[in-house]
């Protein structure tokens, strides 16, 4: 994890440094497309936070957006966020008795979303946008006591709202930073609907 953090921070510094000396002069127009690929930090909230409180840079996402007007784009977003937590051996009460185990909790969610983007600008040093999406989440829940597990996987409705910025390095290439609040209608055991924030950092490419 430390290696990942180091790479992540280095990546951010290089891109910010580079972006300080660059700017896109070209306006994105209707018909243009943007692809982006991003690392993602997942921050659990609600009952998911009660289940797993760890924040994890263990996610990845990609999206493609096609500009319908000069400001509005629609597209598809895919990706995943993984959450994991492990506890040292503990004794848990259970009926007329108890059991003791090393417990591992894991939840993975892989959203596939139809997404809309509203870009306030596309030709500045920093170009903010708002985004909203709806679609499905492929959710995998696992809770192991030692080697004994309880698992559940299902596909559920999900939605998200978010905002981000594009920081161009060249006319066709730049940095994408986005934060999205995600909801998935998945409930199992102690998890009652999934809510988490994903903060993603990556690169985007424009196809004119």
């Amino acid at each position, binding site marked *: 994890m430390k290696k990942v953090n180091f790479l992540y921070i280095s990546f951010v510094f290089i891109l910010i440094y580079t972006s300080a000396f660059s700017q896109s002069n070209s306006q994105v127009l209707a018909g243009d497309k943007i692809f982006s690929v991003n690392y993602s930090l997942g921050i659990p909230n609600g009952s998911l936070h009660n289940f797993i409180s760890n924040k994890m840079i263990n996610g990845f996402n990609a999206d493609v957006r096609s500009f319908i007007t000069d400001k509005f784009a629609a597209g598809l977003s895919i990706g995943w966020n993984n959450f994991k937590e*492990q506890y040292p051996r503990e004794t848990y009460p*259970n*009926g*007329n*008795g108890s*059991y003791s185990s090393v417990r591992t909790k*894991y939840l993975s969610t892989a959203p596939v979303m139809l997404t809309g983007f509203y870009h306030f600008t596309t030709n500045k040093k920093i170009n903010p946008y708002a985004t909203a999406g709806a679609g499905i989440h492929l959710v995998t829940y696992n809770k192991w*006591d030692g*080697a004994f597990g309880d698992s559940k996987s299902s596909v559920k409705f999900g939605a998200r709202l978010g905002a981000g910025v594009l920081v161009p390095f060249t006319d066709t290439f730049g940095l994408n930073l986005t934060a999205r609040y995600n909801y998935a209608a998945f409930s199992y055991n102690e998890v009652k609907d999934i809510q988490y924030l994903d903060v993603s950092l990556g690169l985007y490419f424009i196809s004119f």
Partner: protein
Amino acid sequence: MKKLIFIFCFMLLGFFPSCIAPNPQNSLNPEEKDVYITNYDPSGKFSTYKTYSISDSVVYSSNQDTIIKKALGSIDIITLSTIKSAMQQKGYLYVPKDQNPDVGISVNRVNVISTGTAISYPYGYGSGYGYGSGYGYGYGGYGGYYGNPAYIYNYQVTNDALILQMVDLKDHTDPKKLKVVWEGEVLGDFSPNQSVALEKRLTDGIQNIFTQSTYLKIN
């Protein structure tokens, strides 16, 4: 643009493995994978029991073999002595079987080679692991006694178990129908060549099941 799409696809492929669920089998040592389970009968009068006896060997059974065997190898001697030591720490006095002990302890090793096992519990162990119906597998009991049968059900991983059963020899009407008042289990994979010696795992497990059974003590 083709180059960008290639990079895009390459990055997607590169990160694909990170979306696969981790398997704790890979990150835990064998001892960490062990689960220690205890159950008791609320009608058991643990504080009134003073003396106990224990089987003179360990009963082995497996779903691969219809024969139930008794054994007293070095690991069985360690197992029995660890149980005796734990009972002594709880305040119970060991007596031979012919001196009317208050409780008797049977020691069983069960091995099931299949994908996924779990053991049923006579006192209604919860459904948290999703135990479903499966095939029953009985095992031998304390000396000539047989406690409530335990059953192993298919679940998720192959497993072995060390099962201790405490039967009430003091308060019964029919010596052929003894009541199991306590049960302790060490569940894990006991196959050889593991990084932690089985002796250590079993002794740690036995100590744990007695430690977590706080009601096992005399006045």
